[in-house]
């Protein structure tokens, strides 16, 4: 699936903007602050969650607007052959004028293959996310049935140097794309853990049978979380190991911090039981899958990611995300849309060319931003080039 049309209304810096991206690479260029990342953020809202900035919904409405916003898109299945219908470089008006004369493939926007999805908030209910799928009201979770979207943003540059929670969240997003039930287990695990922490805060009245019931829930869901992560790590590791040591840093993945024992569920349950005093004194639970860390190494150098240069760290993240996109495409039968914010600027020309070649050969829609067009010179002619300026986007 790719977006063949994206329209933004009162979203961030855009009062009203319409884009017609092609199914392959989509390049957004513009000055700093022109609103390139806002467009990526709009795309990222077409999956469950809070988007690539993790911002609150009311912050996304345009400041001079009425308080609501909407992001709408048309999804099309991938083209049956490379170089299929793509209105490259054509403005919207031209594209729609041309439409009747262009030979219509089975997946034309007017055909039955297209799906309209949209999300946003109403000015009257700014905290409630609205979702429409083909005109009917849907849930944010249902969006995940249509699209998976992965992103790499400059904010993730600190992933390897900051705390484990960021890396854990990053990896859990990758797991979630492979196993949607990961979210349910995580939510239940955390609810049980919060309840246990609350009981342990008053140790003199804590009922041991109640604690043990909560620990049973934590152990059950915690074991499922750990298993899903192990499966995802094994599959991703296999993909990464099979990659050539080419221009990209090949990443080695492993878990650090808390690790499940052989018999995860019963061992974790026993561990929690013996740790009641310690956790009660600490005011939180000190062991469990919420204390697992993701360790990344630069395989060719045999160096831990946190000791690599900024550029190498970026390349490591990129190699993980690309491998993951391949994995999801194989397993779920649909390639995730990639949002690569300011990625090209951090790569030298040879790595840039290699990245573009790899993205083009893998297929799938990839949105990239950069301050100048020169960064994207190595791109093939199929890419959609968009310029962002003054709260507007135009083709070319």
């Amino acid at each position, binding site marked *: 699936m790719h977006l063949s049309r994206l329209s933004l209304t009162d979203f961030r810096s855009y009062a009203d903007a319409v884009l017609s991206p092609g199914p392959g690479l989509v390049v957004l260029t513009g000055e700093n602050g022109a609103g390139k990342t806002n467009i990526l953020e709009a795309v990222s809202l077409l999956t469950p969650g809070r988007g690539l900035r993790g911002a609150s919904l009311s912050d996304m409405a345009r400041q001079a607007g009425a308080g609501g916003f909407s992001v709408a898109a048309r999804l099309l299945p991938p083209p049956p052959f490379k170089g299929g219908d793509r209105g490259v470089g054509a403005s919207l008006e031209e594209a729609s004028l041309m439409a009747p004369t262009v030979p219509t493939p089975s997946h034309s926007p007017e055909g039955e293959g297209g799906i309209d999805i949209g999300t946003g908030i109403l000015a009257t209910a700014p905290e409630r996310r609205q979702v429409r799928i083909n005109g009917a009201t849907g849930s944010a979770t249902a969006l995940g049935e249509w699209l998976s979207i992965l992103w790499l943003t400059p904010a993730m540059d600190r992933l390897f140097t900051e705390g484990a929670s960021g890396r854990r969240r990053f990896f859990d997003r990758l797991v979630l794309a492979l196993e949607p039930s990961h979210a349910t287990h995580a939510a239940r695990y955390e609810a049980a853990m919060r*309840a246990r922490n609350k009981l342990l805060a008053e140790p003199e009245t804590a009922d041991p*049978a109640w604690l043990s019931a909560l620990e*049973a829930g934590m152990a059950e869901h915690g074991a499922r979380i750990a298993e899903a992560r192990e499966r995802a790590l094994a599959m991703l590791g296999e993909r990464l190991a099979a990659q050539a040591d080419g221009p990209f840093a090949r990443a080695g993945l492993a878990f650090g911090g808390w690790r499940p024992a052989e018999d995860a569920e019963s061992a974790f349950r026993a561990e929690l039981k013996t740790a009641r005093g310690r956790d009660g004194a600490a005011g939180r639970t000190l062991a469990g899958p919420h204390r697992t860390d993701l360790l990344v190494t630069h395989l060719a150098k045999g160096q831990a990611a946190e000791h690599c240069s900024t550029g190498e760290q970026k390349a490591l993240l990129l190699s993980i995300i690309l491998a993951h996109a391949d994995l999801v495409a194989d397993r779920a039968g649909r390639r995730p849309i990639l949002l690569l914010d300011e990625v090209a600027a951090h790569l030298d020309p040879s790595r840039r060319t290699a990245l573009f070649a790899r993205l083009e050969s893998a297929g799938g829609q990839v949105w990239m931003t950069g301050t100048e067009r020169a960064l994207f010179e190595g791109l093939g002619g199929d890419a959609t080039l968009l310029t962002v300026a003054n709260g507007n986007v135009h083709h070319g």
Partner: protein
Amino acid sequence: MASPEIEALTQALARLPGLGPRSARRAVLHLLKKREVALAPLLRALDAVNDKLAICSTCGNVDTTDPCSICADTRRDPRLLCVVEEVSDLWALDRSRLFPGHFHVLGGRLSALEGIRPEDLSIDKLIARVAVGGIDEVVLAMNATLEGQTTAHYLAERLETYPVRITQLAHGLPVGGELDYLDEGTLAQALRARRPVV
């Protein structure tokens, strides 16, 4: 504009679960128009229930007798006891006489975050019923929510020392359910709980 009395009736009905101001007005109009066939029998029925309303001191069911008609029913199997969270769960299970034994209503579920503790539920009474003896099996029929399952674990642990079989409702495929429409969590649970066909 209706008189204050009619308005008070409308407001009282509007607060009932499943009703709102609009349905309440419709109901009131119906009662006023059909005073003899609708209003008078309703009044008598309400009065009778209000008079005799009782909470069963054995199981916690709501009825007009104490012990309730289920506890007093000698055709039921006294060796089977089914524990539920709420009276509505008891009624759901008893609607078609699915369960041949007796019931026990907890009056809620454990929730550390909402401050619902074991002593707030009818748990000591349950233990006392089991401790008396004569019960072979306790069926824990809690909701499949985290809090429901925590409560079931808790009860299982408290009942461990008594010579009773403790069972739990199965989780998985609903009858008539299509795999295609099930969420992954339910499917995974159904797979884990698979069993031999013969």
